[in-house]
């Protein structure tokens, strides 16, 4: 039997080359394009010391890592750091306090380490479902996706991806304890942890049935594996209840940033109104092309979820649908390109485009070019993602 094309070493080398690419673009954009720089509300010290891949929401993670959660907002419009889940900044704090390195650098290191772990798990997950030939194209699809540079930034995307994959692959490998732990931690990482719950429950049930277990035992195993992400999320809520007397403070904090008072339930209506306004006023590309692209990413992932459905991969399709389904509840489309990143099964479908090699190559090159542009405008405070 021939050895797999995507050996661990090759996968890590490809990922390392991509890491170098993104960092190179970020450093050049930071040093060589001062004319491009947009305004920021960050203080002198933070602007001076952070790495180029620490911008926008990274500041909130840094503030939690360095000073913990702030006092709750007293009025609408007061921006606080409660919208951000605790696990990632906690890891950043641990690394910073043990080594003394700069906080944003610690964040980049944790994001990078999580990405390398995620890549190996992703390869394993693809191999079991689509076979060896899909591994490399799916990895290229993941890395060349325009917003994938967030996996290296001071953001939670790579940790969320790593924990989701660790949980799913642990179910595949019949390691329920690891799956439970990873699921619980993902609930403490970001809101996508919650939509991981049904995915883990259904995956675990399917695996149990595959292993010849009864329906009763399969359902019990599903419950056991599906609950931890919810428990992780509830732990976060319980902490806020204990400390600030408001278990849903993270939602309040997120909606406090808007220009008008709203709740998560108002989100879909606001997004629909925004899209309608963009379409009817002809603003689609010339006024807000970045926002339009976010909508395009969302549609693309909806399409990929449908493709998964057509391949009879119900559980994966549900997970992708639920992940992108979170976007409208934020009340804006502007982070859609980042929100879709933990929906890893979609990248496996994208990798399927490699059956048309020339088209796939063009798509990958275009993806990398768009990614470079995104990195440059992110680093220069022109686009928050």
């Amino acid at each position, binding site marked *: 039997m021939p050895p797999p094309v995507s050996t661990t070493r090759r996968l890590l080398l490809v990922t390392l080359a991509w890491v170098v690419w993104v960092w190179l673009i970020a450093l050049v954009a930071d040093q060589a394009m001062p004319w491009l720089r947009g305004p920021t509300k960050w*203080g*002198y*010290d*933070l602007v*001076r*010391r952070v790495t180029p891949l620490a911008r926008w929401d990274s500041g909130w993670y840094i*503030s939690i*890592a*360095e*000073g*913990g959660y702030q006092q709750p907002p007293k009025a609408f419009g007061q921006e606080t750091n409660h919208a951000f889940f605790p696990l990632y900044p906690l890891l950043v*704090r641990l690394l*910073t*306090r*043990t*080594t*003394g*390195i*700069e*906080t944003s650098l610690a964040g980049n290191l944790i994001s990078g380490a999580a990405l390398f772990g995620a890549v190996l798990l992703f390869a394993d997950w693809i191999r079991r479902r689509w076979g060896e030939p899909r591994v490399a194209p799916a990895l290229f699809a993941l890395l060349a996706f325009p917003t994938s540079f967030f996996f290296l930034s001071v953001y939670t995307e790579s940790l969320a991806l790593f924990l989701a994959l660790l949980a799913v692959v642990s179910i595949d490998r019949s390691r329920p304890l690891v799956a439970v732990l990873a699921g619980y931690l993902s609930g403490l990482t970001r809101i996508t942890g919650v939509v991981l719950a049904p995915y883990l429950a259904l995956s675990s049930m399917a695996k149990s049935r595959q292993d010849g277990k009864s329906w009763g035992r399969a359902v019990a195993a599903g419950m056991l594996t599906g609950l931890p992400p919810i428990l992780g999320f509830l732990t976060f809520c319980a902490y806020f209840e204990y400390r600030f007397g408001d278990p849903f403070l993270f939602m309040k904090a997120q909606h406090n940033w808007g220009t008008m008072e709203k709740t998560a339930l108002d989100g879909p209506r606001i997004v629909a109104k925004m899209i309608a306004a963009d379409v009817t006023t002809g603003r689609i590309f010339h006024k807000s092309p970045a926002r339009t692209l976010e909508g395009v990413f969302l549609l693309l992932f909806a399409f990929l979820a449908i493709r998964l459905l057509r391949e009879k991969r119900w559980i994966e399709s549900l997970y992708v649908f639920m992940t992108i389904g979170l976007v409208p509840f934020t009340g804006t489309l502007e982070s859609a390109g980042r929100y879709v990143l933990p929906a890893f099964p979609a990248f496996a479908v994208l990798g399927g485009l490699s059956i048309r090699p020339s088209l796939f190559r063009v798509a990958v090159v275009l993806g990398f070019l768009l990614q470079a542009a995104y990195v440059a405008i992110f680093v220069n405070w022109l686009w928050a993602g």
Partner: protein
Amino acid sequence: MGRLTRTSLLAALLVSAACGPGRDLGLPHKAFLPAVVRSRIPGRVPWETRVEVTNPGGGLLAVRLRRWPPDDREAEEETIVIAPRSTRGIPLRIPLLPSVSTFLLESADAFTVTAVVRDRRGGGPPPLPIPVIEPESLARPGDTLRVGPLLSDREHRSHIGFTFPATEREAVPFRVRTAVIGADGVRLGTWEQALHGVPQIIEDPWAFYELRDRRPLFVEVTLLGGTRGRKPVWGLWVYGIVTEIATNASRFVERTVRRGS
């Protein structure tokens, strides 16, 4: 050498390298100015700090000035040369209020420095002399700074400032524990907070610490350390200023340092 030993040695080297160099105590003669300000708020007094350095010696004096924060990165550090037995004003190069900056001046030879905050147009409220502090007197981890009494009534308003020199850039943000104590000695509350990487002013301590009434109070600030686990070079300073509302005349309130064990 075993693989485990080699790995441990490498890890230890990496950690020690990451923690940076040891404490650099700089040049022998030093002065720290804890509050250097300038303001241009329409309708308010245009405050400006006048900083002057005097060279009492017979030779040229080179003074290294470190501003934190400056108005631009290139102004963070500057060497000022002063002719023998003369005095020279220092260009401010700092951001406008509400930002407060600090100056750290160092030289191989003796010098004196004076700093006053005054109305840029002349006249106006009496100038406020800025205390010139030896960096050795700054609070180290475990030390407590006490400032007060701070007043907030019909005649007075007060604010406090947490400041530190540019040398602390690698050690900040600082973690501090602040105890607010009434003039009658009653402890009104204790808070822990992280001070960000530049000096920070609390314009209205009564509102900031959510106190029920505006009784005179003292603030005791204990420096717990850096949030990044790095040791400060010199440390933290806290000041309090009481201003007469009618005249805008200000004064620094008394402060003491209690050294930790």
